[in-house]
């Protein structure tokens, strides 16, 4: 930053010297200097990282109050999960968002996130929470949620900027030591933490009654644990449900992290628990050395400067993965550098030569065992837990490599969301109507049922011949019958588009869907081949949810706020293959379902006409109608029984074996979907608000 300014001022200074070189100045004003190099130098100074991000908060995901709340929760939860997993503890997370009162009528929220992780050593707490770009994850290549070490400190800084309240951290390392409590402010000028309480030392919180009183006094909470950390940040924010909300984030996190339990209490006091479905931690990801292909020239120069290895060969072998002495020798030969030349003597030019040589040398791909995918089985479990549907499929691709970074793609798919609206029983519907606080019927429909958007809701209301703005509470029993009829008759499948859940290293990505390689690849995939409707380069239509997980030691995000994955061709290819794998299974399922439906129609059609034919025959010949009908019915049974076996798209005999789908497919009886819906309504404790959460899926 500083450098840039200096260069700008130089070019200005050089303007007059140009005119001396023969080019006549056009006006005398050009000659007058506005400032001298010396006076400008006075204004040129260091910019601290904290200051830079304080001014450019949108780069970190604090564009607006609503997103600020989400980002804060997200950073805290991500850190908590990383810490627990690294320590080998099954994570349990408590999230509590409270509205706090303030004089100006601004919206302020207090976010408290606690984990059951290993805790943080008291000495490190201020640096982790009060210094930007401080962390353990940046300098290593290992699959983790956080990368740069900006997130949580940036959230604390944002809170401080908007409310003036410090970040409050309480951490307990073990049963034997007392919990430690800090209140931290970030000094934006120096990018250093400033501890407010306990004269810059923080305070220990004694266990038992006395400690509880202290906790209470400081306006924080603590759920009794042997070890863990709780961070509390108060910030100016806005709480809102729907797309891009905290609720959505937590729900999506639960899908991709089936080993996590989350307890969530929202500002309105609704509690929701996501219990873990897997009792095993994902295997610990291994740290790897960078692969030569993934290193840029600047980085290479930097590494050369830092290294302690005496020769270039040793440097290459020790700092990179997949570089054996023979590979190193080939690189040196290609670069025209002696393989025993000292690393200290390698200048910029030689470094460039080495860099070029690396690109030209064939080096095997990095080891891919450093990545821990969620796994097909757990994806199915996670999806089924949260998304209602009839058909689930999952596929985990083998690991692959982009720019020297190993990565792995996983895809999960759930089909059959409309079933909730189509199969809801009258009792369930009444219950749901009772519970809702939606003001209009349209709102009720689109909030309660998966896959019903405003368009589909309008269709239903039109079919039921009701007014759009009627309050659901005012519906009479007869109206409910009409509504139920309409819901079952209207074809909603085309009214909804695929719901895409994107994940990078198990973290949900909620924004910039359009700019993300995942969404783009889904749109470019031909879903029509799998029996879905899809306009060209659009998301397919239908009651379908797709989750895509990219696991990598270094996820290429398009920006610091980590919202979209960049489109590398290697990544897109793996995405496509993964999507096609689940797509094929969906296609099989849909074809079979269509066939069953078709056969049913076929039998029905014969049965429908048999009565007429029997009637006509009896009219002409006087034979008893029932006799001939019964006889024809026998023929019909035999004929359609043949059809049951015969009918396949390709005319083959169909084998009604589940195995045909292959592994990792889950088919749910449609009737269960209804129960699922009701169970959810009940789980929300009779509070209608949580119904809206379902809508996210």
């Amino acid at each position, binding site marked *: 930053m500083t450098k840039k300014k200096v260069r700008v001022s130089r070019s200005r200074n050089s303007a007059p010297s140009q005119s001396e070189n023969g080019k006549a100045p056009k006006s005398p004003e050009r000659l007058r200097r506005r400032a001298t190099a010396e006076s400008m130098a006075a204004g040129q100074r260091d910019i601290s990282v904290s200051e830079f991000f304080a001014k450019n908060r949108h780069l970190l995901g604090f564009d607006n109050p609503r997103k600020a709340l989400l980002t804060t929760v997200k950073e805290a939860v991500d850190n908590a999960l990383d810490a627990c997993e690294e320590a080998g503890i099954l994570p349990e997370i408590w999230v509590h968002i409270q509205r706090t009162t303030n004089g100006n009528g601004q919206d302020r929220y207090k976010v408290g996130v606690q984990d059951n992780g290993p805790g943080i050593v008291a000495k490190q707490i201020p640096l982790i929470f009060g210094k930007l770009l401080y962390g353990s994850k940046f300098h290593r290549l290992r699959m983790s949620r956080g990368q740069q070490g900006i997130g949580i400190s940036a959230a604390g800084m944002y809170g401080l900027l908007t409310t003036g309240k410090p970040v409050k951290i309480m951490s307990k390392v073990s049963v034997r030591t007392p919990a430690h409590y800090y209140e931290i402010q970030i000094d934006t000028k120096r990018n250093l933490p400033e501890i407010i309480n306990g004269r810059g030392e923080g305070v220990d919180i004694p266990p038992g009654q006395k400690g509880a009183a202290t906790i209470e006094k400081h306006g924080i909470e603590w759920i009794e644990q042997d070890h863990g950390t709780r961070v509390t940040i108060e910030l100016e924010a806005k709480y809102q449900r729907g797309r891009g909300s905290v609720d959505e984030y937590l729900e999506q996190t639960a899908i991709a992290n089936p080993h996590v339990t989350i307890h969530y209490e929202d500002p309105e006091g609704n509690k929701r628990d996501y219990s873990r479905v897997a009792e095993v931690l994902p295997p610990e990801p291994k740290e790897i050395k960078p692969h030569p292909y993934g290193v840029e020239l600047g980085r290479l120069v930097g590494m050369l400067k830092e290294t302690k290895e005496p020769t270039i060969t040793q440097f290459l072998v020790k700092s990179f993965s997949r570089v054996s002495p023979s590979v190193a020798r080939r690189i040196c030969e290609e670069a025209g550098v002696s393989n025993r030349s000292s690393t200290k003597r390698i200048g910029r030019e030689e470094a460039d030569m080495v860099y070029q040589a690396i690109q030209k040398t064939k080096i095997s791909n990095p080891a891919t065992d450093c990545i821990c995918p969620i796994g097909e089985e757990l994806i199915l479990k996670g999806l089924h837990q949260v998304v209602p549907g009839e058909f689930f499929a999952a596929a985990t691709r083998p690991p692959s490599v982009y720019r020297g970074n190993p990565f792995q793609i996983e895809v999960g798919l759930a089909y059959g969301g409309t079933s909730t609206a189509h199969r809801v029983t009258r009792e369930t519907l009444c219950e749901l109507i009772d519970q809702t606080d939606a003001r209009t019927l349209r709102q009720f429909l689109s909030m309660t049922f998966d896959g019903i958007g405003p368009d589909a809701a309008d269709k239903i209301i039109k079919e039921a011949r009701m007014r759009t703005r009627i309050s659901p509470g005012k519906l009479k029993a007869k109206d409910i019958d009409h509504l139920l009829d309409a819901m079952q008759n209207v074809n909603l499948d085309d009214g909804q588009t695929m719901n895409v859940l994107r994940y990078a290293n198990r973290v949900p990505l909620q924004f910039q869907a359009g700019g993300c390689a995942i969404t783009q690849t889904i749109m470019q995939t031909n879903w029509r081949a799998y029996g879905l409707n899809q306009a060209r380069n659009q998301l397919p239509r239908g009651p379908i949810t797709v989750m895509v997980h990219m696991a990598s030691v270094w996820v290429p995000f398009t920006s610091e706020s980590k919202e979209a994955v960049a489109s590398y061709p290697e990544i897109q290819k793996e995405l496509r293959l993964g999507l096609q794998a689940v797509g094929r299974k969906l296609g099989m399922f849909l074809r079979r379902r269509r066939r069953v439906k078709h056969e049913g129609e076929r039998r029905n059609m*014969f049965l429908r006409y*048999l009565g*007429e*034919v029997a009637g006509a025959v009896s009219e002409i*010949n006087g034979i008893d109608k029932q006799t001939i009908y019964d006889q024809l019915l026998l023929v019909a049974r035999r004929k359609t029984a043949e059809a049951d076996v015969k009918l396949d798209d390709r005319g083959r005999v169909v084998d009604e074996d589940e195995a045909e789908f292959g592994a990792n497919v889950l088919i749910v009886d449609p009737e269960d979907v209804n129960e699922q819906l009701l169970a959810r309504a009940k789980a929300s404790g009779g509070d209608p608000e949580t119904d809206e959460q379902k809508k996210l899926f």
Partner: protein
Amino acid sequence: MAKKTVRRKKMAAAPAAKKPRGPMSPRDQRTMDQLAGLAESVIVAADKRRDPHMDIPTRALSNVRFNSAKRFIEMGNKTNRRHLFNLSQAKSFMQTMLVASGTKQLIEQDKTTSIRGLYYLLKHSIEGTKEETFADQGECDPVIEDTEVLLSALREELHLYAQKKGDMVGELILEDRGDEIDCSRMGSGGYGIPSIVEPDVIRFKKCNAKFVLHVEKDTVWQRFNEDKFWRTHNCILTHGGGQPPRGVRRLLHRLHTELKLPIYCLLDNDPWGYYIYSVIKQGSINLAFESQRMAIPDAKYLGLRSIDLERCGLSESVKINLNDTDRKRAKQIANYPWFAKKKAWQKEIKQMLDNGFKLEVEALISRDISYVTEEYTPARLSEQDWLD
């Protein structure tokens, strides 16, 4: 068989059998036997646990043959098998059985109805569904024709008639169900040709006419009638409202065969007009089984001709451009075996295609209102200038 049917019938559907009729005519008896046979085939198949089917003679160009000796179209012996237990045929099988049962009721009660009437008689929603037996009359009509060919019974034998279309005036006295009708005293409206014109309905009493002039449409026919063309030229004047219905064709056939009157046609100069002529002359593809008693191989095509725009000095604005369907249709007609070998016709159709326009008979009015009756037609007749 019939007797038994009537008895059982009373039990099955009481209101339909209120009026017992007198003894059945041999013709009706034959049709009843045919119907009974059709129903019997279903019973037998059901009894043997087989898929009931019926073999319906194919009504398509592929199943007609031009008999060059008799000079009309005959039906071949290809049939289409219609199954009850076939998804695409189940409904039409059911419909065919319904039409059969409907005509059985008509014969039993000795009533005649229009095909539209039969459609209403049979139309009801299928039990337990919202589906109608027949969605519209367009669905019913082909099934009736199927039933005709299936039972090899004529429409009147099924006690059905089509909508009346076509009128007649001229020097002819006939008897229609006992009423004597003088076709030279019909005023401006003319005698409406009924759908059934068999000898038991219409008998010719006296005829002074020397020929029959058949025109395409009502409007042209009115022109000729107002100018009393039939009186000055001593002829019978008919029209068929476009494609002539069976009644008109049958009547023309009877006038030609029984009274030995030559038939001249004055039709539009377009593929549609050519096809009307072809139907009158050789019989239609659809009703090829009736050609024997409908086709008039000696009928002549008087006009309009492709050369008439120049020959009669008509104004350019009467031209109607040919569209793609017209061109396609014209080429089809040129390839019909009964046109293929006639050089004059090939030349005529080629000329029309080259012209790129068609002419309606009314176009002659652009010369003079009565040009068609006073100059055009008399000139063609006296010069014997027609196409055969």
